[in-house]
């Protein structure tokens, strides 16, 4: 039986690398019996999905913007090179 520590490692690794068959079975068996690791696995799915939406969400945050001084400076540099 895999430990919780081991299961969290495998759940995380499954995002980068396909797990072997015994690993997948081991994780599934553990998750059937452990609600904490089940929560962990759900939270990892959430984190992954959130990161995927990050770029879009960032674009809607108008509190962060280029300062006018920097915009003008970059504009001038571009005009000189164009």
């Amino acid at each position, binding site marked *: 039986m895999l*430990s*919780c520590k081991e299961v969290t490692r495998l759940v995380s690794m499954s*995002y980068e690398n396909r797990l072997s068959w015994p690993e997948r079975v081991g994780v599934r068996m553990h998750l059937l019996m452990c609600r*904490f690791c089940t*929560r962990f696995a759900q939270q990892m799915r959430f984190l992954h999905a959130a990161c995927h939406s*990050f770029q879009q969400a960032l674009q809607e945050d108008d509190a*962060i913007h280029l300062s006018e001084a920097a915009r003008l400076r*970059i504009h001038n540099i571009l005009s000189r090179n164009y």
Partner: protein
Amino acid sequence: MPKQPQAPSSPPDTWPTDHGDALYRYAYFHAHDTSLAEDLVQETLLAALTARERFSGRSSERTWLIAILKNKLVDQVRKQAREQPLAEYAENDDEAVEALFAADGHWKRPPSLWETPMRALEQKQFWQVLAHCIAGLPVAQAHAFRLCEIVGREGNEACKVLGISATNLWVLLHRARLRLRQCLEIQWFGREAKVKR
């Protein structure tokens, strides 16, 4: 006469107005420093100017510029990883992560239940908390996590950029995820639970 490209980009001097904020937000999230982020925007637009003929019009101009910015960010991480090798961070224990589990591998502080997590994605402050949590990661973990989960690079490319093995990358990403989970639980979901009570 040379053939005109099908969808030429808009005049470069309109870029700072049209795309400056979007590029800056992306750069600022990664660099967490105003002048560094401004430099990245400038470098991106200068690189775009040079590569203007190659803009195909297949993607939007914004997407094209963001892709150039992502390359600049990856270059920056590569440079930092050369100056400060990262492998040892994966090879040494991360005390904060070790402390999450007992000696027998059971949770010492089990994950709590996050109610309606998807609702968080609609809230502006959530993204600030996530950015704050990522910025608080140890530097090697932050690089690995941003490259793979935010910039969206494949594992083998991330390994090359960071100068580490695949095993080291998995270790760093795993630790980053455990730390981020805990940070979000404390900084976001804990707060939400308290408000509800």
